[in-house]
């Protein structure tokens, strides 16, 4: 477990390393970081020059001078035993900074090489080091320090060195994780294959990766060390005859009734110094562009409740096809869905889609991934991510305007009158609840059934969707059933309140081929039985041919063609439809269709 001890551990000439020069410049552009750095610089200088800045001794006590206010000879007054507060503050800074540096030095000396060796070589050393670090982390550091101090007497330096050992597992784990991650990278493999020695690989490829997280960790560590040291000194376990911030707090606490002002200076010193280190650490994290900020990317805008679909423009009267309006279950006109980009612009993923579903009709919504078909389906359900901004000229379900519907009103439709079958069965059941519970809960909520009635109905439903042993599946957790079974459960869930509209989002894509056919048959049977309208989102023309009455073809957010299924297959009008048909049905259409380049196949997202 040794780090090659050549100078310049950072990087060789042709390294893919984050540009270092830029880091400092980015750091200095952050005003908070500059302030923090300036403050730390002042503390360091004041500590180093402490003997020059004050002529008072920090430890000389004189009871006659106890608790003097600010004034002559004692700019900040004196403490409970007549020691000069300013001198203690300055000399205490020395103690704190020295202690913090000891902690960092010891924990790096132990954690860094151990982490690199464990992550790079793995094997027995990794096992032993991991076990040891768990052992050390099982005890509160301060208890261990009490043992050490009980044995070897009061010494801040010794305590800080031992604390460095106790906190080394933190460094060890961090470094090990970074090394393990980079070790699997191809370029490290390539270096190994090309015969580079271990020491060289570590110096050129491993160390650079480790530098950034270590630097950030060190800035946190400095703060932790100062706080812990102050705690020990507060307990009266610091070195004797040595000024310290924790010791000052101890004295201030003893005089808390007579001179609470004594609390101010050491508290300020500790809090400001630790905050400064923490700010520097955060700024470094940003400047180095290391992770840890991912969670914050989710802004308040996204966390805000999702807005309802907004009316785009008044629905142009008379333009809609009124031939059999009474039959129409769902009508969507000029639907737009957009997501804000970080730069303030918008990514529009659905651009003016219009579609309608009549009672008992199966509408296939076809397109490649990214064409906006799932986004269209989810906007009908009101289940787009909160960031999404939607608008539509018309969005009616059963004659009711869905635009601007309150969440509660939408909840009364969802699950009860509109059912939803997801794509991936295994990720769509809550892993913490039994299957039966997930079926029963919506029925009790929507239909007001008793627990027993809902249970009976759920078991019937499970039987209806072809589950051989409903009782067992009812009592199972999702991880105990197969994917095909889970999809049947989800279909049963979608059917449980007898919806008028079913939205199925690629319901067979994630299933085995044999199961696919069974599930499609089931959907067809249930549809015929209950006369539901269905939106079937799919990219599979085989499924469309099998099931759908009408087909809407989507490309890059637009519906390019809508036609009865038979006509679409026989005489596709749009070029994109022809291309899709050619690529899915191997026995139809000339290859010529493929030679027309189709733009932006990847979609808009």
């Amino acid at each position: 477990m040794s780090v090659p001890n050549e100078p310049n551990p950072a990087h060789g000439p042709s390294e893919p390393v984050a540009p270092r020069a830029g880091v400092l410049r980015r750091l200095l552009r952050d005003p908070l970081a500059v302030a923090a750095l300036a403050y730390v610089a002042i503390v360091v200088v004041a500590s180093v020059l402490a003997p020059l800045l004050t002529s008072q001794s920090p430890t000389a006590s004189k009871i006659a001078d106890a608790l003097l206010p600010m004034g002559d000879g004692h700019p900040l007054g004196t403490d409970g035993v007549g020691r000069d507060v300013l001198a203690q503050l300055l000399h205490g800074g020395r103690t704190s900074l020295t202690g913090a540096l000891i902690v960092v030095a010891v924990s790096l000396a132990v954690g860094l090489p151990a982490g690199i060796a464990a992550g790079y070589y793995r094997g027995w050393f990794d096992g032993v080091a991991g076990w040891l670090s768990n052992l050390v982390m099982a005890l509160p550091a301060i208890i261990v320090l009490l043992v050490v101090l009980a044995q070897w007497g009061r010494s801040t330096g010794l305590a800080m060195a031992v604390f460095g050992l106790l906190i080394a597992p933190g460094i060890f784990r961090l470094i090990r994780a970074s090394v393990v991650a980079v070790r699997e990278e191809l370029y490290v493999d390539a270096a190994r294959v090309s015969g580079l020695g271990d020491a060289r690989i570590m110096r050129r490829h491993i160390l650079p990766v480790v530098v950034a997280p270590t630097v950030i960790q060190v800035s946190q560590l400095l703060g932790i060390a100062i706080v812990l040291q102050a705690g020990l000194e507060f307990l009266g376990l610091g070195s004797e005859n040595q000024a310290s911030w924790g010791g000052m707090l101890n004295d201030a606490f003893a005089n808390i009734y007579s001179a609470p002002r004594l609390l101010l200076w050491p508290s300020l010193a500790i809090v400001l110094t630790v905050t400064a280190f923490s700010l520097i650490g955060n700024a470094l994290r940003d400047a180095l562009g290391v992770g840890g900020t991912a969670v914050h990317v989710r802004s308040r805008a996204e966390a805000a409740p999702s807005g309802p679909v907004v009316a785009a423009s008044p629905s142009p009267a008379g333009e809609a096809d009124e031939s059999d309006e009474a039959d129409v279950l769902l009508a969507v006109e000029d639907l737009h869905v957009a997501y804000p980009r970080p730069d303030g612009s918008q990514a529009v993923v659905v651009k003016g889609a219009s579609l309608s579903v009549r009672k008992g009709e199966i509408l296939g919504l076809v397109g490649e991934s990214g064409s906006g078909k799932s986004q269209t389906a989810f906007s009908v359900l009101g289940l787009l991510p909160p960031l999404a901004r939607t608008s539509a000229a018309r969005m009616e379900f059963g004659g009711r305007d869905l635009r601007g519907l309150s969440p509660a009103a939408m909840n009364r439709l969802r699950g009860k009158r509109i059912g939803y079958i997801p794509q991936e069965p295994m990720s769509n059941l809550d892993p913490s609840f039994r299957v039966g519970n997930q079926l029963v809960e919506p029925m009790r909520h929507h239909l007001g059934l008793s627990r027993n009635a809902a249970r009976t109905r759920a078991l019937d439903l499970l039987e209806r969707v072809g589950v051989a042993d409903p009782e067992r599946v009812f009592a199972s957790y999702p991880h105990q059933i197969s994917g095909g079974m889970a999809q049947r459960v989800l279909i049963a869930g979608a059917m449980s309140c007898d919806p008028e509209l079913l939205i199925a989002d690629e319901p067979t894509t994630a299933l085995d081929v044999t199961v696919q056919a069974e599930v499609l048959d089931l959907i067809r049977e249930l549809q015929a039985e209950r006369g539901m309208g269905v939106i079937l989102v799919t990219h599979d023309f085989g499924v469309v041919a099998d099931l759908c009455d009408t087909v809407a073809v989507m490309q890059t957010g637009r519906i390019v063609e809508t036609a009865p299924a038979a006509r679409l297959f026989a005489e596709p009008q749009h070029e994109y439809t022809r291309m899709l048909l050619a690529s899915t049905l191997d026995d139809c259409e000339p290859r010529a269709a493929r030679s027309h380049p189709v733009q932006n196949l990847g979609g808009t997202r």
Partner: protein
Amino acid sequence: MITFLLRRLAAGVVLVFVIATATFFLTGLTGSDPAQRIAGTQAGAAQVAAKRHELGLDRPLVERYADWLGHAVRGDLGTSWFTNQPVSRVVGEALPVSLSLVLAAILLTAAVSIVLGVAAAVRGGWADRVLQVVSVVAFAVPNFLVGMILALVFAVQLGLFPAIGYVKPSVDPAGWLASITLPALALAIGAIATVAAQTRGSMIDVLRQDYIRTLRSRGLPARSVLLKHALRNAAPASLTVLSLQFIALIGGAVVIEQVFGLTGIGERATSAASQGDVPLVLGVVVVTVVLVVIVNLLADVLLGWLNPKVRMS
């Protein structure tokens, strides 16, 4: 699940044994001569030798270890060098104080972290800002300083709580609660910052899961989706972090007890450490490790209850 728990129990016993042994030999090694220290600097060579014999320090280290271990497994942790009281009794009397404090801090942490973490995950806004402030305070302000300020404001100025001392719950339940409120609050801030941040993160992760969208598609009320389903799935990660925080809370209690004049095991350990009372310090270490092992086992049981995959395997 049972096998799993038994394995964890065995690992816990090993942990206690290894740490107790390591601590014993650590304290048995060099350092200043304890017999000289206890007998006093004025004591003559004969007195010191007599003291050494009385404490059994003239026997070989390994023999002393075997003797100590033999008694320790039966619950006898030896005798204090300074007060001659049995260590088990001293620790036994101090333990309820520390446990009251730490358990109150844990309950407080759990309650505040859930509210703050869930609110920050779902709403952002004010909850996010509160969480940020708590994190900064928890990192930069030592908990004993928080304790002193709390005592100064709520006990000394406003007189709402006692500034120091502990009241046994058997004597006065309300007084007991009042006596541990401020120290538990001071102790919990660090844990709240950590656990609430974890809760926020795992809630955000869970709310992005497919099954949450499917549950919403079933028209379930937002409250049920959030508090029944999402929270249940986010809980294991928070619970794991909370159980790790127990170690930090025990450590924090050592200093907090000093501020509020509570005679818990931390206060005992501190005075034992400054006197060099090795048997008492050793006893505190053993009891602390045992507590950590028990809490980890409890956390494992709870995790099994929360996560069916763990429970079934």
